């Protein structure tokens, strides 16, 4: 990616000290389950890499168009899994898909290069987002496991890929996919990653793109890092200039022949150029060419792909498109490499533009494309599409865990797919700019690889804790990170612990560790049956009938408190481990909670003298008033600080 390394603070001296001196660091392999790999990308250049680790058991699966030489010392593994897909959907059509690890979609090349791509100077998408592209962990190795095909990603294939990846010897797993919301024992990703965690493998998954609806996340098992998406400080601005002289901002990655700067083009609303009830959405075949030809068309967002709407306008003879967000998308601007002069505008802007169109007899407009702009403030802002809490599978565990860059991300792309993904798009480019929690997930996978390289002895839970407790939830000014759909301060349901800060995560001070025993006790707390737990854990495990299990006993780096109807007191215990070679005295502070709740941390001071030392504390939450009604929520934060480190945990209280 370009820009996100700088945005995450990875391009400074700290990174050179910590991360890029590869010879001093452990070899780390990131396994990516996705649509495969386009191995010819420069992002998989293996210059400077030593021999493949002798412990590596992966292979480069030779198949049509994919040779042993497709892999190298950077791309050390490539397999494909299609038996489940073909059993359900029929044999793969060789003319449309490659029965090999080769990526004909682009998504898999994008995610794997975001996590681990080697440095590629002079990268851009048609001049947009220029710079040196690199993954978050450019010195890490990568192994790809193709599990997603044009018809989807099937659980039997995913489980087979996880089975192989763990056996091959990956250290980090990155899955930018999801399958709805189900109990963990029925969720293949949760089942497979449980075993991965047990073997010391960090698992990062995308939270989903079903935001901003509440309770819309997938991949919420507590042993998984669930990653939401935010913007970075980069935009691709356009001006929509109207015939009345007014000028509105939008965003676009259009790179073809430009329109003239004066608003001389006829401008119409798609809803007035159609006989279809949903014609305003510019669905295929709904626009009347006689009404559209030679004009700029304003389409409403929804149902069909954004770039597809541009194609529909173009096919009907339109010369440009303005795409207005729905209220759900708010003012979020996602850049698209449209096939005609097209631009996205926010919902409010769209309403203003529509008001102009409806108010004059001959509305006119033009679109002025302004390229790439950096330094956009505020950033990050939580993406509207990023799935939100609360966690509907286990309400006692706060999710998402954190957010990372996921809007307008440039990374590697397939050599046989245009940047819009449309069959009519004949353009080919080694990089593409796309958005989604699919894009934020591999950022965290790469950051986890950096941490694993620097701290090979850290458990997956320790790495996740380091990333979460050092994440930030305010801008430098001290005000809270915003959510783009509301324009208001984001809550832990939007951002979890906050936005990743890898440099701080290198030295988190304290970590909240967890192991398989903790997760087994957690499954007991969920009242899973012995058969369900045995299926998940692959061992003969019985919950003790002499023990009381509680979800809140899990040593999670965040707090979720569910008060009973009667109010009262809820006490939770946590254990922190000192990971600094020097000792320190940490003091607790709780901030942000509103409402009549008394919070007491005992002890309020923790003193450490050596690395690896563990200390426990309890947090008591006591309702002191009764003004809260059932279902209401309050958020706050607990921070432990020794003056050098801040170990932060979000708190959510629900009545």
């Amino acid at each position, binding site marked *: 990616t370009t820009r996100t390394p700088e945005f995450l603070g990875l391009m400074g001296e700290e990174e050179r000290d910590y991360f890029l001196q590869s010879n001093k660091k452990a070899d780390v392999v990131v396994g990516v389950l*996705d*649509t495969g790999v386009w191995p010819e990308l420069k992002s998989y250049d293996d210059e400077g890499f030593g021999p493949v680790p002798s412990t590596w058991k992966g292979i480069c699966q030779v198949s049509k168009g994919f040779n042993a030489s497709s892999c190298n010392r950077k791309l050390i593994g490539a397999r494909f*899994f299609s*038996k*489940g897909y073909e*059993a*359900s959907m029929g044999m793969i059509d060789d003319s449309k898909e490659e029965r090999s690890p080769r990526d004909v979609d682009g*998504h898999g090349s994008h995610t794997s290069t975001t996590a681990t791509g080697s440095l590629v100077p002079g990268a851009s998408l048609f001049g947009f987002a220029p710079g040196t592209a690199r993954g978050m962990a450019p010195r890490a190795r990568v192994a790809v496991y193709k599990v*997603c095909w044009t*018809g*989807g*990603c*099937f*659980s*039997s*294939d*995913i*489980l*087979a890929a*996880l*089975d*192989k990846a*763990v*056996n091959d010897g990956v250290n980090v797993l990155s899955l*930018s*996919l*999801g*399958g*709805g919301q*189900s109990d963990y*024992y*029925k*969720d*293949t*990703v949760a*089942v*497979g*990653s*449980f*075993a*991965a965690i047990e073997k010391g493998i960090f698992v990062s998954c*995308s*939270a*989903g*793109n079903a935001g901003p609806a509440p309770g819309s996340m997938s991949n919420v098992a507590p042993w998984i890092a669930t990653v939401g998406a935010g913007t970075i400080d980069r935009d691709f601005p356009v001006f929509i200039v109207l015939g009345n002289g007014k000028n509105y901002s939008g965003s676009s990655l259009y790179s073809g022949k430009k329109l003239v700067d004066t608003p001389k083009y006829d401008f119409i609303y798609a809803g007035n150029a159609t006989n279809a009830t949903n014609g305003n959405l510019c669905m295929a075949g709904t626009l009347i060419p006689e009404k559209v030809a030679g004009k700029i068309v304003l389409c409403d967002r929804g149902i069909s792909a954004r770039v597809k709407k541009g194609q529909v306008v173009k096919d009907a003879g339109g010369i440009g498109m303005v795409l207005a967000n729905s209220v759900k998308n708010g003012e979020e601007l996602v850049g698209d490499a449209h096939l005609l002069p097209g631009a996205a505008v926010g919902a409010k802007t769209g309403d203003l533009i529509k008001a102009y169109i409806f108010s004059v007899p001959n509305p006119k407009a033009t679109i002025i494309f302004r390229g790439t702009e950096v330094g956009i403030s505020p950033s990050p802002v939580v993406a509207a599409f990023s799935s939100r809490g609360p966690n509907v599978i286990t309400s006692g565990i706060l999710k998402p865990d954190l957010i990372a860059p996921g809007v307008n991300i440039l990374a590697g792309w397939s050599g046989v797919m245009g940047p819009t993904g449309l069959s009519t798009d004949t353009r080919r480019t080694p990089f593409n700019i796309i958005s*989604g*929690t*699919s894009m934020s*997930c591999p950022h965290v996978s790469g950051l986890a690889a950096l941490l694993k390289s620097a701290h090979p002895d850290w458990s997956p839970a320790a790495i996740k804790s380091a990333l979460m407790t050092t994440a930030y939830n305010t801008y430098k000014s001290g005000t809270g990170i915003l959510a783009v759909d509301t324009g208001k301060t984001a809550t832990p349901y939007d951002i979890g612990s906050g936005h990743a800060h890898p440099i701080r995560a290198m030295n988190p001070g304290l970590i909240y560790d967890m192991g398989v025993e903790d997760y087994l006790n957690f499954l007991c707390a969920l009242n899973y049956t012995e*058969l*369900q737990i*045995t*299926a998940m854990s*692959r*061992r*003969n495990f019985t919950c003790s009938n002499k023990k009381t299990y509680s979800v809140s006993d899990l040593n999670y780096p965040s707090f979720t408190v569910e008060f009973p109807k009667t109010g009262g007191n809820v006490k939770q215990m946590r254990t922190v481990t000192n990971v600094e070679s020097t000792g320190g005295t940490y003091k607790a502070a709780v901030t942000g909670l509103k409402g009549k709740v008394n919070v007491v941390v005992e002890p309020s001071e923790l003193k450490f003298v050596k690395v690896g030392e563990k200390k426990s504390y309890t947090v008591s939450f006591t309702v002191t008033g009764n003004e809260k009604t059932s279902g209401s929520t309050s958020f706050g934060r607990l921070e432990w600080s020794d003056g050098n480190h801040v170990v932060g945990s979000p708190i959510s209280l629900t009545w």
Partner: protein
Amino acid sequence: VEEERKTYIVHLAKHEIPAVYKGLHLDWYQTSLQSVSESAEILYAYDTVAHGFSTRMTPSEAEALLAVNGVLQVTPETRYHLH
């Protein structure tokens, strides 16, 4: 009416493998499957992150498989999507 076949993931308790199949878990999987279906075949055998296999069979066969010794869980195939 012939039942439509679907894909299922079958989890087994490896610690309950009969002595005769020690070290031959694939044979055990196959025998377990054949006890409920004459024609179903194993798509994948899992041995690292799960103990079991995936197969195409009818819902009736899936239900019957749940009663076979050592079978813990039979889960229908789920379609995941990219984010």
